């Protein structure tokens, strides 16, 4: 048995599976931010039968993320090459908003007085220009310890290629101060560009003691319930035993969104769909991600709280449009939606918690798509009058009816999300029209068809339990580690012949680490890719490789593929320019259990009801179905609405609903082939 537990900002969700991957139980409890393990334990106690064999637990949590966002990490020290001690404060010297005269830089997590320079310097090529001054280094460490730091981050220049001095520091600290937590830039993120690497390392150190304490507490509590195996999801969508996560907690900062994408991939692939764009619309924001051939795009470029965080992660774009996003008129008289959100408190006006601003959810209430008595399975009684009043306030300023304005609010939210989808698709050289939009999160299925319309996408898939997909995604995760090595060479025949050898050596490292996690490397599946560029460029494009094919081909073939990729991405290629091989990437992955089967139990016999909704400013009749009553094979034409406890799905006119054999809702544009 496996149990997936996802700690979110508001709710902690749990799904329990049997050994064949079928759902035994689901539950949702309120999160306990002060001590997140409490909610986890209370959720476990609700569903786990002490008499049965204990399940393996797969966990996702925002403990590390919140520590950074709320700046509640530990007192952290920073060691760097002397002469460069202000790197965290200097940052990149630029501003995110160019006309903001009263601009404020992001505040570093480590203040200047907890930074020390160490006398050492290694050149780009590995030559030691200044040997490490060991006694000065120890003094620097001691003075940080005297300042009361709990963790130390180390980032020396060029350590991504030459980690020797950082490793010496690690040994010195471990020997003298075994209680101090340590993060080395050369092991957290071995890539060049010192500010980004230093920032990533500092974040890792800053959250490490907190994540460790949390996981120890959790493992103890879980152990008391017989659960001995706890896995965590990382930002790349892969699972890792919790005891290793403690060593590199920075790799889990974006695990929540990664879990959702992982769940969406599994459900779509079970339905025979491998090319998807995911859309997870929550209360304040929407996450989108492009998945081709069942594999999400990965990146190492992200920021958290305006600070660079460069670890392998699923390439997810977030945009400030969610169910709680507030509609407002800007000083130029233009209707805007978000990025400000009413959040959970006071929440949309219709929640009746005192909110008066019109939100996307209020607009959907006015449109008639969300019905009082049915929202969240009827658990939250909606105040339709308050929603109407809030939307009418905006409508009056626009000189429109509340109905028309409600539709416009939804449209603007749709466009905002569609632009995020463009970022991950067209802007990366992929045509969204050949993808299926997979919508989840409480608000996603309501807006999915509207977003699909903006991009001429013909098909939308709404999985079972769309509000629980992140917890489900934990269970769909595989063990996965990404390995990379930078070794720049020309893509000539010699460089080409070296590709296999480089992968052999990278594979040896990967197998060693994987075996150390207790996972037999030979049982893992492997995929490889290489980053390439024109000589003189500083950014690369990643090309997937098939090593069997490489053996029988020539450098020209690879160069040709790079030119094609460059042209697709940038609209321009220069085939006469020399190409370079830069970074070699190898991924090992392995299933951790039987494939999960997520199905809606279609045992309910609630009959469809007819209710009025707004289309083009006018009232229109619409059928409302209860999802648990829709058997596989059910079909219906829009407009229609499907309600269930965690979400509402809208099928507009011109769209058609089919319930597939796995109980997914497939919404297809009429007339599309």
């Amino acid at each position, binding site marked *: 048995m496996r149990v997936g537990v996802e700690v979110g900002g508001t709710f902690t969700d749990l799904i329990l599976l049997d050994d064949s991957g079928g759902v035994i139980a689901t539950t949702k409890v309120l999160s306990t931010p002060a001590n997140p393990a409490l909610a986890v334990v209370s959720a476990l106690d609700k569903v786990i039968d002490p008499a049965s064999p204990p399940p393996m637990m797969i966990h996702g949590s925002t403990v590390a993320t919140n520590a950074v966002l709320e700046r509640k990490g530990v007192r952290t020290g920073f060691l760097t090459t002397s002469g*460069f001690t202000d790197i965290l404060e200097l940052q990149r010297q630029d501003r995110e908003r160019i*006309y903001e005269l009263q601009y404020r830089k992001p505040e570093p997590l480590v203040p200047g007085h907890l930074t020390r320079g160490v006398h050492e310097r290694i050149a780009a090529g590995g030559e030691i220009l200044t040997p490490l001054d060991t006694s000065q280094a120890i003094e620097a460490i001691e003075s940080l310890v005297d300042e009361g730091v709990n963790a130390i981050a180390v980032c020396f*220049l060029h350590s991504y290629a030459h980690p020797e001095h950082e490793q010496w520091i690690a040994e010195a600290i471990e020997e003298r101060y075994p209680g101090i937590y340590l993060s080395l830039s050369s092991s957290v993120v071995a890539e060049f560009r010192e*500010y980004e690497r230093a920032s990533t390392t500092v974040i890792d150190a800053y959250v490490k003691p907190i994540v460790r304490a949390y996981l120890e507490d959790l493992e103890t509590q879980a152990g008391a319930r017989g659960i001995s195996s706890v896995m965590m999801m990382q930002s790349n969508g892969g699972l890792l035993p919790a005891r290793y996560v403690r060593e590199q907690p920075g790799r889990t900062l974006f695990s929540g969104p990664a879990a959702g994408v992982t769940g969406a991939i599994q459900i779509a692939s079970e339905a025979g769909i491998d090319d998807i764009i995911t859309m997870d619309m929550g209360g304040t924001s929407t996450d989108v991600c492009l998945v081709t051939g069942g594999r999400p795009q990965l990146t190492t470029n992200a920021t958290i709280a305006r600070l660079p965080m460069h670890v392998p992660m699923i390439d997810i774009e977030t945009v400030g449009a969610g169910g709680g996003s507030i509609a407002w008129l800007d000083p*130029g008289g233009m209707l*805007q939606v978000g990025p400000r959100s009413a959040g959970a408190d006071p929440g949309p006006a219709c929640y009746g918690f005192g909110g008066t601003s019109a939100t996307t959810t209020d607009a959907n209430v006015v449109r008639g798509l969300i019905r009082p008595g049915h929202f969240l399975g009827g658990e939250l009684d909606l105040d339709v009058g308050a929603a109407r009043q809030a939307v009418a306030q905006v409508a009056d300023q626009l000189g429109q009816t509340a109905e028309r304005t409600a539709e416009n609010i939804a449209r603007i939210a749709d466009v905002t999300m569609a632009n995020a989808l463009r970022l991950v698709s067209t*802007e990366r050289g992929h045509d969204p029209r050949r993808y299926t939009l997979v919508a989840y999160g409480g608000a996603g299925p309501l807006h999915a068809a509207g977003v699909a319309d903006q991009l001429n996408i013909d098909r939308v898939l709404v999985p079972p339990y769309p509000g629980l997909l992140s917890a489900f995604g934990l269970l769909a995760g595989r063990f996965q580690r990404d390995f990379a090595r930078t070794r720049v060479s020309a893509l000539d025949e010699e460089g080409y012949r070296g590709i296999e050898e480089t992968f052999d050596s990278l594979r040896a490292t990967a197998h060693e680490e994987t075996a150390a996690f207790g996972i037999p490397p030979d049982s893992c599946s492997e995929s490889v890719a290489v980053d390439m560029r024109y000589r003189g460029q500083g950014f690369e494009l990643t090309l997937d490789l098939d090593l069997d094919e490489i053996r029988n081909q020539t450098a020209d073939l690879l160069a040709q593929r790079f030119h094609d990729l460059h042209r697709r991405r940038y609209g321009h290629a220069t085939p006469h320019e020399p190409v370079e091989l830069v970074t070699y990437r190898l991924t090992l992955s392995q299933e951790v259990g039987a494939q999960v089967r997520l199905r809606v139990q279609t045992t309910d016999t609630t009959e469809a009801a007819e209710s009025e909704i707004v289309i083009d400013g006018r009232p229109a009749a619409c059928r409302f179905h209860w999802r648990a009553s829709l058997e596989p094979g059910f079909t219906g034409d829009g407009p229609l609405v499907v309600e269930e406890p965690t979400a509402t799905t809208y099928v507009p006119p011109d769209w058609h609903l089919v319930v597939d054999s796995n109980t997914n809702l497939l919404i297809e544009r009429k007339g599309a082939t």
Partner: protein
Amino acid sequence: MSDIDPITLNIVGKSLQAIAREMAANMRRASYSSVVREARDFSVGILDTEGSVVAQAEMIPMQTGGISEAFKPVRERFDFESLTEDDAFLMNDPFTGGQHLQDIFLFTPVFIERELLGFAASVAHHVEVGGGMPGLNATATEFYQEGLRFPASRFSRSRDWDGGFVETFIRANVRVPEKVIGDLNAQFSANNTADRRLNELVDRYGIDTVRDTMSGLQDYAERRIRDGIRKIPNGIYSGEDFVEASAWGLDPVPIRARVEVQDDRISVDFAGTGSQVPANINCPYASTISAVQGAIRGVLHDEDIPFNEGCNRPITVRIPYGSILNPRPPAAVRARMSPACRVHNAIIRALSDAVPDRIISPGFDTTTAISLSHLNPETGEYGVVIEILGGGWGAGPEFNGMHGLDNPLSNCANAPVEALESEYGYFRVDSYELEPATAGSGTHDGGYGVYRSYAATRDDVVISAYSDRFDRGVAGILGGGSGAPGSFIVERADGTVEHLPSTTSITLKKGDVFAAHTGGGGGYGNGEV
């Protein structure tokens, strides 16, 4: 006036802005030089058929403000009826709407089938454009010594690029052709992106809606700017700052701004500003216009206004011809950012009494540009790197100034030490830190300047550099103290130390170290609470 409904305007307008952002992302990733890729000294935009900017990415204010000025000669001189998709325009002429010669604009027409919708624009600071010295010519007194000049000129992409006359000509006249041509190709990537995406946008919404959005966005921005100006009390305000010219044995040149706010309009007059000088610190007309827009935009305190031509309609500017802010040929203009920043400072000083809560004190606010070049004696190949350093920003009414930021009219990032040292073998960065002692004091203190030093690892490394505020640090505001000035210092391998002027060229031997120190920001308030 366009009568497009506000919802459609918002929806299509957001898509236009998304296109501009995508142009910028693609340009950076496809680029070659450190100054474009790491420092991000480039900008992009979409123009309508009049050449008015309708959407831009947030990049370098000096360039974004200058795109429509740079396009004016294209509109005036060429017959758009005869344009085809094969046409492109290069432009960098400081005397007809350009910036300095390094900023090369590329304009390409965007057609929807046969109909001209507008133009894609990109501009990059090119690391090398020929001229008297590699990267930058500190001693130039005429623009002829500063590099190649391209008055707006039309060429055929199929015939003249990719081995054709224009590409070959540029390639033959710059010292690092692979970087320059590579960056120009990155500009084509940006422009091609706009072409593709605009065609898709028209497919979706129709050409009339897209055109209406293009004009509606400008009207919208104009309304927002006018709203903002109304919040500044009516009046006539004056401010002054200085550009130093001691490197040429000249007195400081005054920059005088008289700012008149009347309801929803602002006019700025630079009468009384000093005459142009035989040095590279003259500011082309378009740069002065950009500086005025940047300063006014900064005090409006409304960050969400899209930047397009509509923003400029409520603003009128008068600049005496022959002054340092509107020079006649053959003035040298390379370091035009120094006088342009003083324009910004003078306007902020002028408005400091009117809107004290919306401003910050002037800071070091200077582009400190450093070219490090080396001619490999064996291969005959040049290496050229341009470094841009920021300084301390001025303090605000409720906070201390920011440390080590590029000036308000620019937004260049620093180049990672690791990126520079991996690519170039003739120098190393020896140190890069803040200098706390440079801050001006006040109720709130100014930000810190920085120092960054470079050690030559070969003989005959040539450094050319310019900066400003070397003789006197920036004065604070509303009683705040002055920031410290900047300096350039060379320490030779034998231990001798030389202090250099603010604009300088020097040859280093292996082991010599060149250190650039930038100044701190001015304080805000006299310390009495």
